[in-house]
């Protein structure tokens, strides 16, 4: 499968997902294959989201450390 084909396939799936979420296509109307594809897409998105959440949590922790250090410095200066 070429890159263009993959891109088209993904676009098609995203469109299907949008239609499903907007209620244009019901779950009962989906075929088994479409359901499986959607499930995989959702799982992939969830995995990506979980990764992003983990990353953002790490950065938040970093900020927290920095802020606490700054606060200590400020207290000392005062």
């Amino acid at each position, binding site marked *: 499968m070429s890159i263009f084909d993959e891109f088209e396939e993904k676009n098609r799936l995203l469109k299907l997902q949008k239609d*499903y*979420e907007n209620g244009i296509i019901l*779950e009962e109307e*989906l075929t088994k294959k479409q*359901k499986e594809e*959607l*499930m995989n897409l*959702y*799982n992939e*998105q*969830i995995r990506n*989201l*979980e990764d*992003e*959440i983990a990353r*953002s*949590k790490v*950065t*938040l922790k970093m*900020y*927290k450390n*920095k*802020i606490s250090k*700054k*606060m200590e*410095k*400020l207290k000392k*200066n005062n």
Partner: protein
Amino acid sequence: MDKSNNNELQKMKTYKEKVPLSKKIEIFEEFLNTGGEIVGKTVYKGYPIGMWAIQIRRKIKIHKMGLKGGINPSKEELKKLKVLGILEKQRETLDEKMDYLLQWVEKYPDVKIVWEPSAEKKLKGYAESDDEYNKLLLEYEKAKKCYTYICDRKSRGELEEKYFEKCKEAKLNPDIFGYSTHIEELSKKFGLEHRKVDYLLEKYGSIENFVRLYRNGKLKDEDLEFAKRTIKSYIDIDENPYSDNYDRLIEDIYGERQDIIFYSSKRLQEVIERLTERQKFMFKEHYGLETGKMKMFKTIAEEENISKSGASYIAKTVLEKIRKSYRNSREIFVLDKIEDESDFQKEMLEVFKESLDKSNIVFKTVKSSRNDSLKYFYSTKFDSIRKMIKIHNYEEKFYEEENTEKRNLADMTIDQLGLSLRARNCLMRAGFESVDQLASVVSKYVEDGKSVDDFFSKINYCGKRITAEIKLKLEEIGINLENDSGLIDLESIRIKRERLQGELSNLRQREKEAQELLNQYNALLGDNEENKNLNDE
């Protein structure tokens, strides 16, 4: 018997003359004119007329059947025989006999109808003169005859039920006719012999009176021993003399939280029977279940030459055993507020009414720390309920509507799952004791959008292999944790993604806020370099 009668009998024995039927009829007429009755043994002027009457009836029957040896009386003779009443049996009916017998038993309850050597002495006590005594003797013999006749009939299986029940109620002979239904019910309820119940009822009126007297310490030696032997095995808080001891035991089992507990004594006894003899001894001594006196561990230990800690350890292990046996059972339910009758209580009362005839003992406890008026209120309330309940399967009926599978799960412990030792230890260390508990916690975890594997990975020493094993075992019972979470459902997956998206956006906003806060601090400190570095990162 009179001398004249004896002579007549002697004549009868030597009598060989054949008497024709016409002459027999004349003799019958003569005898009946004197006002006598013809019975089997009546003899008149040396003639055995009683025997004649029987023979005539039998021979006429034989002739009618067409056999040899019968007689065929003429029409005139037959008429005369009919008028004299010889063709019919001149016996008393069964009803008359029964009435006579029952009247006799009522009149003279001390004198037994069954053979008794002291009967004549007892009858003398009733009679004032010799004539009366002779009369009484005759009546006694007649009553005896009636009794033997009824007994014969019973042994042949010809006694009807109504007569049988009459004999039962009159306590004629319990070995043959059995005891009354009331006595049978009581003996079943208390697990006593029929004779003992009969004895108690005669002496004390009711068994409740007997128990009350026992509890108040007013029984004499023989009865006291009898009561000790019989009543102590009957664990009912209202009727057991050591109810306070059982109260204490129940408090130890359930704690002091509950006010009133319905409690099946059957199960308690089952558990006690399963213990070893040493455990049984220690347990019963400590709570005073047999003697009524509770003993400290110290005194038991001194008596048995063991350490105090050893004695307390044994008793505690027993208590734990009992607690475990009740942990997941539905047998107990607690009523906290009796005053306002809730729908639950009404339902319960209905169930009690339904299971009225069943006979399992259930007993109650009232928390001792409550004030007396409240205690009295509870006890009276429960007495009224008690009248309605003879519960056997009340809990089964009550939970009939519930799903049976769920009920099985509730009863199942982790040990019963059949896991490997490592997996079992993992779950036990994490504090799970029943399957129901585990399933509920996991489902809550999954509802929050986390996976089942995540849950198990948080338990110490619970690796992938163990989680797989636990999942498999649960699936074998019929619990699919992932199915319950709804992860396979497309809609739920979508919801999960949206939830994660929301979470991410929240985190990003917080990041922004944190960055702004950090910038403010940097501005305050004048440290711009670090800010630059951070932005680069």
